[in-house]
């Protein structure tokens, strides 16, 4: 934005100051800005202000006399499979999840990643790489286990067809046209090859 210099008489010296404030920008709401659902007197909104005191008294931390990382622990879960442990922990935690034990190449990558602290990029980026390898390993492995991935079902495309039928029909028609064009091209190319052979 450019601030224009006010016009002045060429004979007079320009004023160094004024008591008139410069024009202010428009502060009106955009036409799409909805306000009508909020009462004019906001203090009439249901429950207004009932937690002013609760919030003011909410301590970010409660007082405690525990000064060790673990506190008092009586029992420790025993690992049945490999558990990766952040090197920033003093020892294994008393409990841990057993969702998916590491294995294969992705497991080796995870082993490598957990050699580094949580501030190291190679820790996190190696884990992200391991996740992608893990997906490929399971994609192939599940074919041999007799339960191959069903992309249509797993991606929930039936919901897209149900709730966006028009858009998806257009996509299907465009896809069919594209596939048909590719098939026609391949067929023409094959036929023309055959013609040349015949010659």
């Amino acid at each position, binding site marked *: 934005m450019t601030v224009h210099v006010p016009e002045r008489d060429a004979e007079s010296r320009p004023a160094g100051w004024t008591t008139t404030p410069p024009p202010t920008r428009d502060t009106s709401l955009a036409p799409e800005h909805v306000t009508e659902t909020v009462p004019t007197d906001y203090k009439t909104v249901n429950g207004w*202000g009932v937690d002013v005191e609760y919030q003011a008294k909410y301590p970010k931390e409660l007082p405690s006399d525990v000064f060790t990382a*673990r506190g008092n622990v009586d029992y420790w879960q025993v690992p049945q499979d490999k558990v*990766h442990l952040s090197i920033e922990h003093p020892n294994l935690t008393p409990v841990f*999840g057993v969702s998916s034990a590491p294995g294969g190449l992705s497991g080796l990558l995870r082993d490598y990643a957990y050699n580094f602290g949580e501030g190291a990029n190679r820790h*996190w980026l190696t884990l992200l790489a391991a*996740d992608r390898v893990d997906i490929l390993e399971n994609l192939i492995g599940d074919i041999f286990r007799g339960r191959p991935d069903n992309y249509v079902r797993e*991606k929930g495309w039936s919901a897209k067809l149900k709730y966006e039928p028009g858009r998806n029909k257009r996509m299907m028609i465009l896809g069919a046209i594209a596939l048909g064009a590719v098939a026609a091209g391949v067929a023409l190319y094959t036929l023309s090859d055959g013609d040349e052979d015949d010659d």
Partner: protein
Amino acid sequence: MRAMTYRGPFRVRVEDKPEPEILHPNDAIVRVTRAAICGSDIHLYHGLMPDLRVGQTFGHEFIGIVQEVGPEVHNLKPGDKVLVPFNVCCGTCYFCSRGLYGNCHNTNPNATAVGAIYGYSHTAGGYDGGQAEYVRVPFANFGPEIIPDGISDDDALMLTDACPTGYHAAVMGDITPGDTVLIFGAGPVGIFAARSAWLMGAGRVIVTDHLDYRLDFVSRYGPAEVINYTHLKDPIVYFKKITEHIGADVAIDAVGCDASGSVLQSLTGFQLKLQAGNAVALHWAINSVRKGGTVVIIGAYGPPYNLVPVGSIVNKGLTIHANQCPVKRHLPRLYEHVRAGRIKPSEIITHRFSLEEISEGYRVFTSKLDGCIKPVVMPSAA
């Protein structure tokens, strides 16, 4: 048992898994009666969280019936109907003893920077979640709560995460009476943050998103002023303009790393994976808040880092408040609000899916189909 399992970005399926077992004397096994898909599950669904392994079951919002308890569990017994806060926490470590239940040090071996969360990757402890027929609940003497009288099952489900998290966002905002609160994101957490901001005494609550149907909902539920940022040439300039060119007193990022609204952030965060997702909501929050104001980060971000204007935080003298919600600390107060009708958590539920239909549930929620705000999953054994 039947359980949802992760297969790769944008792919989940239901398959047979072994039922969970008691692995620690303080464990309980809960038969899930209701679970929900959370907005932060979408970050997992998109493959954005590191150490997310194929085969994991998601779901950190669930309620159910106690099926079995370990020998040291004395607060619960089989048959109790419980809500399970999303934080897996011991209640006794350095951090839990200070009320930081979202930062428990005794439940996540894989990371110290992240508390343990049910069904939220091995970076969050490697626990299977509640989008299944059964789930293992560690430290059952401390975490789960018997659902009290006057709280419906649907309300209880929303009190495991979405509602307390939105409420915690408002608490962290240190709102003083008359403050202007600007909320980025009209998903479940943003909706509850808007409702809660009034309870803290806000004078003006403004919510922005790119989805009109969600803005329409929060405009009535909050209530709140709403504006679709896609109509704005420069959202930050607009938010300054409508706050007397000062900025909002409090800005809440209720979106997290799955935002939209910046080509550069999407390219570097999603396509190139050079940062942990798209941080445009946080970027806008920092720039829209007034000097000396407070920015609350309640949307989920994964490691390792994001592109945000740190210089503006310094130069504007901002206070940043951020944490996972310590659900149990807010539950007593939230029960009062629900009973008094000040918050009606279950009103945000728009869809129900059987567990077998969960891939459709994720698609509907992720693609924002059919006016979806909050989908609930009903396991077949419920």
